[in-house]
């Protein structure tokens, strides 16, 4: 019957004056559902739901409407509006269908489920039955739901990677006619980064929670793991979730959109659960829908209390972690990166004399390298450590230059670890590259600034080393020039050792100078950051004062 009647369900649904049915799910989806049911075990749920719906007080239409909307889109792709109409008209149809639904679905207590659940169930039915039976977790978002959420997100914010502001989301979710405290709680659960705006995953989470709440699921105290922003990935969590979700599913089978899957899962996992379901469904089907719904809801809720404590625990563990991670961000509006960026922005990087010097030095180096056949001697030039401390403005350019000279930084950073070998490097191998000095500078500065931001140090390293190169090259070049030529005619190990010693001395001196310069640079940078922090603090204060100004308007 179901399936046959499903043929023109859309037509009938539209034509049939449903009237009393409150926000019934679109019948066209129901019709389709029925067909799907063949394929999906979940179908039963929906069908069964419909009959209980009629007697029960119809849930507010708006949520259904906007819930069934996606359904229609998913099912028929065209029936969005039809769904609205069909909802009302389809109720009687649905009821008929439900009655005719096979008994095996009877396990689901249809009575309790509000119309909204039907809509959601319809959504679920389509894909869930087909997708996988492990997806029984009511808190897992199905593909069609995700698609619907995506469309809704796009209607609010075309860019999927952007955020939905709190006010926009508030207006949108208020349409669901849920009480404000519940919406507030949903927001608390879904806005995991505590930024007052919703990313796409957060939006999906919030929407999913709203739909679940509409379907009668009590709101969880903590965010279920499947609704975390990383819910898309954890395929491995399915077994765990399924286990924990089973009891939840059992209790709320009618209300759960995923009950379809749940049932299958439950049956698989725990034979006892289906019995419970059957009891519930039997009760619901027998007695008044409205009454049963309340009873079963209560039962479900009480039953749910059991599994709930188990599940929230792991989410709680993660939540504090996530919150702790995000805490500093929310607590202070500016993170270090922001401060650094701000530091970078105001000061314009002065033209780097080093570039010219570096070029010159590179020329020298080239000469030296060419001359210094051994290579070791030529290597001396690159690592000149000490450079005059840069002005604070130049510190900011450090970042810019750092970004510009990422390769240099990379070279430097790897060299950080080499600082311990710095002295050894002097003796061992001098890198006949301009980066050589920078690398050495890096390690030396690193020691000085262990706590400082390595980026800054890297930046400073990148920049400072160039200066030393500039300076050093001159004096060194003289020395090096002489040694290399001398080395050339006398490539004896003794002379090389002497040169090494002298080089080491120079390197040490340069390292000392570099360290001092780095210290000064970092000190200036620190002061700049402190100033920025104050600026940000002031901004925060102004925002708070504005908030205070607005608040009396709201309260009064």
């Amino acid at each position, binding site marked *: 019957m179901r399936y046959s009647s499903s043929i023109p369900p859309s037509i009938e649904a539209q034509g049939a004056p449903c009237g009393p049915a409150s926000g019934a799910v679109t019948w066209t989806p129901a019709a389709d559902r029925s067909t799907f049911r063949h394929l999906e075990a979940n179908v039963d749920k929906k069908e069964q739901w419909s009959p209980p719906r009629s007697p029960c007080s119809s849930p507010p239409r708006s949520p259904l409407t906007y819930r069934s909307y996606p359904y229609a889109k998913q099912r028929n792709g065209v029936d969005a509006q039809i769904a609205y109409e069909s909802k009302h008209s389809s109720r009687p149809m649905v009821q008929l269908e439900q009655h005719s639904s096979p008994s095996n679905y009877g396990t689901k207590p249809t009575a309790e489920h509000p119309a909204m659940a039907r809509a959601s169930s319809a959504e679920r039915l389509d894909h869930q039955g087909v997708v996988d039976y492990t997806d029984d977790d009511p808190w897992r978002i199905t593909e069609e739901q995700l698609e619907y959420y995506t469309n809704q997100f796009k209607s609010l914010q075309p860019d999927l990677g952007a955020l939905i*502001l*709190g*006010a926009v*989301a*508030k207006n949108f*979710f208020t349409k669901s006619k849920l009480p*404000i*405290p519940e*919406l*507030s*709680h949903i*927001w*608390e659960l879904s*806005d995991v980064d*505590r*930024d*007052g705006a919703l990313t796409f995953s957060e939006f999906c989470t919030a929407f999913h929670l709203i739909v679940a709440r509409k379907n009668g699921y009590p709101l969880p*105290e903590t965010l279920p793991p499947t609704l975390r922003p990383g819910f898309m990935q954890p395929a491995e969590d399915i077994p765990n979730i399924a286990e924990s979700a089973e009891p939840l599913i059992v209790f709320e089978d009618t209300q759960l959109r995923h009950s379809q899957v749940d049932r299958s899962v439950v049956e698989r996992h725990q034979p006892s659960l289906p019995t419970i379901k059957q009891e519930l469904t039997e009760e619901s089907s027998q007695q008044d829908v409205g009454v049963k719904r309340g009873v079963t809801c209560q039962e479900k809720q009480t039953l749910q209390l059991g599994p709930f404590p188990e599940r929230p625990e792991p989410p709680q563990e993660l939540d504090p972690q996530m919150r702790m991670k995000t*805490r500093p961000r*929310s*607590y202070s509006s500016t993170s270090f990166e922001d401060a650094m960026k701000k530091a970078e922005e105001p000061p314009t990087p002065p033209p780097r004399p080093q570039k010219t010097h570096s070029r010159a030095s590179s020329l020298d180096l080239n000469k030296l390298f060419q001359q210094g056949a051994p290579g070791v001697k030529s290597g001396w030039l690159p690592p000149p450590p000490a450079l005059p401390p840069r002005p604070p403005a130049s510190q900011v350019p450090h970042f810019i230059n750092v970004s510009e000279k990422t390769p240099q930084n990379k070279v430097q950073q790897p060299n950080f670890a080499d600082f311990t070998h710095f002295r050894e490097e002097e003796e061992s191998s001098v890198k006949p590259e301009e980066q050589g000095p920078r690398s050495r500078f890096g390690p030396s500065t690193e020691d000085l600034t262990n706590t400082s931001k390595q980026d800054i140090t890297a930046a400073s390293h990148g920049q400072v080393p160039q200066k030393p190169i500039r300076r050093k090259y001159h004096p060194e070049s003289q020395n090096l020039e002489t040694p290399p030529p001398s080395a050339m005619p006398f490539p004896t190990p003794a002379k090389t050792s002497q040169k090494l010693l002298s080089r080491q001395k120079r390197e040490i001196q340069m390292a000392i100078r570099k360290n001092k310069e780095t210290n000064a640079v970092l000190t200036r940078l620190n002061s700049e950051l402190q100033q920025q922090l*104050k600026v940000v*603090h*002031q901004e*925060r*204060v*102004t925002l*708070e*004062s504005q*908030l*205070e100004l*607005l*608040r*009396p308007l*709201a*309260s009064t």
Partner: protein
Amino acid sequence: MAVCIAVIAKENYPLYIRSVPTQNELKFHYTVHTSLDVVEEKISSVGKSMGDQRELYLGLLYPTEDYKVYGYVTNSKVKFVIVVDSSNTSLRDNEIRSMFRKLHNSFTDVMCNPFHNPGDHIQSKAFDGIVSGMMVQTG
């Protein structure tokens, strides 16, 4: 462990107040109300501009023989008041500061919630959880 925690709005009306239920709550409400005078006094004594780095943590407002009252005020003149039992001498100043910091963070989260109108009573389970964690764990 606090005995009573209160959040007072800028207009000096309570946004959130909770005390250990076994004790006389009215007494704590009265204590918090009287502590507001001390808070105002401390705020005005600073006398600097709003943007200046005024210390948010006010410290011990006034001790009585039964309990001590600590205060904390945000830059938007929202005040947090914590009443602790005097017999609990193990609580150090840093602990009180950390409690206020947590309160402030949680309060900021509540404010970020678009469904919460500033000036409304705070009805946030997360905030309740934070406060419960700080309250004296009595039966």
